[in-house]
């Protein structure tokens, strides 16, 4: 091993810095850190040679030693002048596997060890780089000892980030690693099968030849003996390979084989012809990753003769990482790594804040379904989409430009050098905060500004990628963050493992259960130490989880998904969190697979909407595919969703300025009365529906309670499903039929006629909505207005929560009767400042909260019960 990494040790604070202390100085905790010019005050290490965190994949090649394979992001600017080769050497030299595959003593056959990955943290203070390093081993029939050691490293200049996000990093990388390894096992099995075929073919050929020689000569010539030896070798080889195949296929089938899990595995269509879909055969030098066409061709594999002495070591080309795993798995891994990169972007405090943010938000589930979007569904939707794609086999093998391994080390080196030169000048200018600040602005800036932010771009890209699924598309075909695929693929079976390691690490890190041991560690980075240290090597003894019956969606799983940062930082919060566990369906931090994947999560309505409305399909899709799992300071969803909402806010602003009766319409929606927007022009109606949709409580994951455009007459059951309906006005018999139903159900609906600019609905005399929809409002921007609305609605939801969960308002006390209970409720609402009409809103929201709480969030939008009031409607005109 060449060189050794610095020890990142637990050191005490006094070891750091000068001994001199000025008595006049403020105590250290009050001092303001000195700020030198041209430095970013948040940059922990200004001497780091890379501009922001990145992920590096390296291999310990048996031919050339440690070498970097790829970085994520693959932007050369990111790595700057950072010497990837050198760092690869460092991280790969932390060799974790004492036992390689090979011939173990006492056994005559090679034995595969299913070794567990190791996770270490190491620092290189000279480079200003700290890394979480995840080592894994992949199998390659041609490699020495059948193994190829790889490692994935998350490299950051901030070692606190590495340390404190260790759990999250670990679980994220474990997922990626599992994905790679599963793909690798498949590929390896395929390879073995082929090799076996080759060997058997060779054997038969040799056999024939030997027989032939025997027949010809009648006696054993030296040639014949040689042949016989060769035959014996082949026989042995066959036996060995068979044994290997048995070993690899008998790998504990925790993943992939489970019927529940399999359904969403991206390569499911390939499962049937799994062995046909091999990557490379031993002899094909040029065979590249597969197309659909190749599969057929490969299904009839022609065995080839194996020469007695195969070419050894240095003259053969080693398989690339992509070839080692199946393509689908490789790309899944890449997506997972991209996701990791994305979710750990930015400053540590920012990551913290957002983690706490999400942890707290997840406790708001009781009311957040009303007006805020649900975090889970984005992921679920993405997943759903991916599953669909996989099922219909329209998932083309994407061609990532740079993520493929460079063909040779030479080219890679030149490449790196070129980057070196090019980026030297630029690297100093960009701060590592870039991404986070852009995220921040993105939330508040106007639409135009949005377009320039990263988030929007990436999501746009993903739309496009989804939109045209052509294999020739040069862009990455996967959306940036289809985390959930791999999360799903992994399933709960991985989690025990994650859990174990976490516990281990915890016990290791928190020595005397001191949660702040991290801080001690932190100070160690400035101490230059030469000895190598691999943290946690001993800690991660892999405990094979017993093949247990799968507990889909069990509460056990939920428990396992606590946010670790909270766990480590704030014991009180943790306790609190534990109490809230049954409510959680998804970890806000690790973002593991949602416990229950509803394959039919797209409701019937949704399907209907999709069919009817292609333009909306795109928007739904884009919403779902662009799920932003990166922490967002404001806690709401993907840029595109915000954008949509802002747009809606803009239209809503126009609506309240244009229509003096906007308040009545909004009252309709908030009090649960279905609003029908009647009009001849589809665009106008859709625009109005869009504008008003931000006022619809419990909009649903897919906005399924809004029907933007309906051209048939509607039924009572439609009223149960939809709270906001755009209805086409038609002058035909169907039209009159429609008007008949409008008339018939007029007591349940409000009707906004956008052609005649009239509204027919109950009267609203309160003041609350006046603040919400003041047509003289000074708010100019749609996004501002949207946020204004959002804050008011959230306020309402909070009041409704209070109203719902106050015992004394709903449970009779001694000597109570219904009437006194009712008067208590009225007084309570009056006390909150709500008049009779506003109380109707609170009542409605309260009913929704009750239903949601009783039935659980899994039921989603429950529209089975339809409540209404018998009140007189009035006709409003402009």
């Amino acid at each position, binding site marked *: 091993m060449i060189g050794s990494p610095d020890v990142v040790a637990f050191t005490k604070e006094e070891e750091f810095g000068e001994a001199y202390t000025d008595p006049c100085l403020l105590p250290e905790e009050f001092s303001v850190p000195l700020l030198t010019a041209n430095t970013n005050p948040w940059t922990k290490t200004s001497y780091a040679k890379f501009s922001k965190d990145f992920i590096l994949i390296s291999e310990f090649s048996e031919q050339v030693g440690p070498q970097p394979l790829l970085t994520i992001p693959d932007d050369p600017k990111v790595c700057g002048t950072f010497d990837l080769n050198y760092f690869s050497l460092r991280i790969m030299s932390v060799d974790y596997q004492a036992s390689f595959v090979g011939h173990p003593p006492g056994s005559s056959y090679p034995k595969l060890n299913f070794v567990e990955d190791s996770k270490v943290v190491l620092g290189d203070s000279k480079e200003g780089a700290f890394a979480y390093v995840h080592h894994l081993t992949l199998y390659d029939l041609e490699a020495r000892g059948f193994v190829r050691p790889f490692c994935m490293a998350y490299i950051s200049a901030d070692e606190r980030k590495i340390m404190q996000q260790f759990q999250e990093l670990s679980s994220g990388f474990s997922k990626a690693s599992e994905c790679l390894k599963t793909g690798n096992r498949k590929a390896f099995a395929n390879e073995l099968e082929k090799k076996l075929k080759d060997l058997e073919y060779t054997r038969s050929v040799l056999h024939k030849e030997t027989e032939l020689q025997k027949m010809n000569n009648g006696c054993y010539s030296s040639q014949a003996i040689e042949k016989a030896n060769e035959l014996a070798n082949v026989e042995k080889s066959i036996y060995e390979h068979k044994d290997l195949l048995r070993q690899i296929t008998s790998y504990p089938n925790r993943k992939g084989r489970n019927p529940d899990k399999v359904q969403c595995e991206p390569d499911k269509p390939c499962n049937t012809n799994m062995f046909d879909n091999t990557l490379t055969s031993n002899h094909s030098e040029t065979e590249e990753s597969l197309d659909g066409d190749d599969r057929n061709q490969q299904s009839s594999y022609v065995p080839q003769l194996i020469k007695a002495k195969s070419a050894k070591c240095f003259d053969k080309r080693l398989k690339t990482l992509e070839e080692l795993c199946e393509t689908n798995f490789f790309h899944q891994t890449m997506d997972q790594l991209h996701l990791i990169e994305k979710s750990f972007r930015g400053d540590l405090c920012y990551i913290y804040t957002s983690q706490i943010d999400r942890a707290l938000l997840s*406790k708001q589930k*009781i009311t957040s379904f009303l007006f805020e979007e649900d975090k889970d569904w984005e992921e679920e939707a993405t997943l759903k989409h991916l599953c669909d794609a996989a099922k219909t086999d329209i998932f083309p093998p994407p061609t990532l430009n740079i993520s493929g391994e460079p063909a040779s080390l030479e080219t890679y080196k030149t490449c790196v050098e070129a980057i070196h030169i090019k980026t030297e000048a630029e690297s100093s200018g960009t701060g590592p905060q870039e991404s986070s600040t852009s995220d921040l602005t993105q939330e508040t800036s106007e639409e135009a500004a949005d377009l320039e932010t990263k988030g929007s771009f990436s999501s746009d890209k993903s739309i496009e990628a989804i939109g045209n699924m052509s294999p020739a598309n040069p862009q990455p075909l996967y959306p940036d963050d289809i985390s959930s695929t791999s999360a799903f693929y992994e399933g709960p079976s991985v989690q025990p493992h994650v859990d174990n390691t976490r516990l281990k690490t915890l016990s290791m890190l928190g020595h005397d259960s001191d949660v702040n041991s991290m801080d001690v560690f932190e100070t160690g980075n400035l101490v230059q130490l030469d000895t190598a240290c691999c943290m946690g090597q001993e800690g991660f003894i892999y405990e094979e989880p017993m093949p247990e019956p799968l507990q889909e969606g069990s509460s056990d799983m939920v428990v396992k998904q606590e946010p670790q940062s909270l766990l480590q930082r704030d014991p009180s919060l943790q306790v609190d969190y534990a*109490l*809230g566990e*049954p*409510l959680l369906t998804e970890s806000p931090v690790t973002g593991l697979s949602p416990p229950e994947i509803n394959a039919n999560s797209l409701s019937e309505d949704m399907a209907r909407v999709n069919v009817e409305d292609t333009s909306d399909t795109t928007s739904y899709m884009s919403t779902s595919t662009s799920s932003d799992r990166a922490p967002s300071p404001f806690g709401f969803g993907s840029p595109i969703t915000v954008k949509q909402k802002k747009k809606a806010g803009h239209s809503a602003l126009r609506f309240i300025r244009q229509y003096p009766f906007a308040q009545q319409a909004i009252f309709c929606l908030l009090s649960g009365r279905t609003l029908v927007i*009647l009009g001849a022009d589809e665009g106008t109606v859709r625009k109005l529906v869009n504008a008003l949709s931000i006022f619809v409580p419990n909009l649903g994951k897919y906005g399924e309670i809004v029907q933007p455009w309906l051209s048939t007459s509607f*039924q*009572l*059951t439609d009223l*149960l499903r939809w709270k906001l309906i755009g209805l086409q006005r038609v002058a035909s018999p169907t039209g*009159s039929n429609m*008007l*008949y*139903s*409008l*008339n*018939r*159900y*007029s*007591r349940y609906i409000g*009707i906004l*006629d956008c052609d*005649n600019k*009239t509204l*027919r609905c109950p009267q609203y005399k309160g003041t609350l909505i006046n603040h919400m929809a003041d047509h003289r409002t000074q708010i100019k921007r749609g996004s501002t207005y949207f946020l204004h609305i959002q804050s008011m609605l959230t306020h309402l939801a909070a009041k409704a929560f209070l109203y*719902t*969960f106050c*015992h004394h308002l*709903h*449970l009779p006390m001694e000597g109570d009767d219904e009437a006194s209970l009712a008067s208590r409720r009225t007084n309570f609402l009056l006390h909150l400042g709500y008049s009779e009409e506003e109380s109707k809103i609170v*009542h409605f929201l309260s*009913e929704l909260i*009750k*239903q949601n*709480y*009783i039935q659980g969030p899994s039921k989603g939008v429950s529209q*089975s*019960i*339809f*409540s*209404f*009031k*018998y*009140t*007189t*409607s009035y*006709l409003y005109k402009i």
Partner: protein
Amino acid sequence: MLRWILGAREAQGNVEKSPVLFIGEEQPKNAFTELQVLKGHFDIVRFLVQIDDFRFASAGDDGLILVWNVDTGERLLELRSRSQQITAMMAYTFIRGGGDPHTSLITASSDRSLSLWDPDTGNRVHTVSDLQSSVKCLLALEYLDVWLSGGNELCVWNKDFQLQCKTEHYSDAGITAMVELPKSCIAAAKDREIVIFKIISTDLDMTVVTVRYLADHQDSIHALIRVNEELFASGSHVGELILWDSADWTIRAYEHILWEERPADGQAEIRMSMQKQSEMSIQHLTSDGELVVVAVGSGLYVYHVMRRSVVAYRKHAHDSDILQTMLLDDGQLMSCSEDGSVRIWELQDLPLPAEPASSGFFGIWSFGRSSKPTGPPAKKVLDVPNLRTLELIGDLIGHSGAVQMFLNFPFKGLLTCSTDHLIILWRDGERQSQLRSLALFQKLDENQGL
């Protein structure tokens, strides 16, 4: 009402409603402020039968029998028959081997079969097919531990689905309704006449004998009900309402309901033929022992048994024929109609003992058959001191087809079934909200806080 939507165009004819009966959207007395749609049938739903405190069954033309939970609206069971339409359904409670009463469902379908279902398991316990005719009505006689099926013949069955006895086969007309009378007697409506049967039960066997034919109705009988211990009532297609004595089967009262403007006179019989038949056809009778509610065409007519007089009426209670009526405890009554609505009425006393309303809306006149002992009751009606009114206090609109039937679960809700294949469960929203609150706090306790 929707003229403003239609703009200048003419309102649709069917949109128009009788101005008298338009109640508007303000219905403070209407407690049904929540509804739930129960979907499951594929054709007209005709029958709703209560099984116990929380379950009911529905059946109709699709041959499906569905068992529902009225508390949750959940469908509990689906009893599949041969997909022939169901012609009659009855809940039948009998003592099983263990000694506990058990409620089953007996259904009759148009393929001339009878089935007994266990609503707990969904099993078809017994079935009898290839009857001579399809069964139109069912009646259980608890004290004899038998049940009867009426079609073109009357059959008596025991609880094990064994035929005990039956009558001759009436080829001309079938039995459409049956009521139980004292002394093991049964009154059955068969076209224009009421047939009195007597079941003679010995230790060995059971026989059914025809005791008498009562042929006083001029047209076919649509409704036959038991009013109280002493009386039963029948109503015919031409608006004749006859109250019969349960013991000696004599006519105790005879009313001929005619929605006529002019007082009855000698011309009445001529006018009668000119009148639209459906307008005076008695569709349904219901009684609480004191009042008999008569659904006559689209009108409602409340008859006081003791006073032998009409106490309230509404000529145009619905836009179309009334299919069922129901008397509620609190002086309210409900009616459902082919127009797709359910209306809730309240019997209100007139504010002042004003002079009786013109008797012209209904003609009550002596049929004048000399053989009848009872005199003409017409004069009594006019002497009624306090004629009450039927005030519309609410309507339930939801179905898009005729409401075939309703079933009331006190405190739980009202069920309506309709030709639009739906069953709607109407509930008191306030009450449900309260129940949900209780459920919420219960779950909160289970979860030990939020």
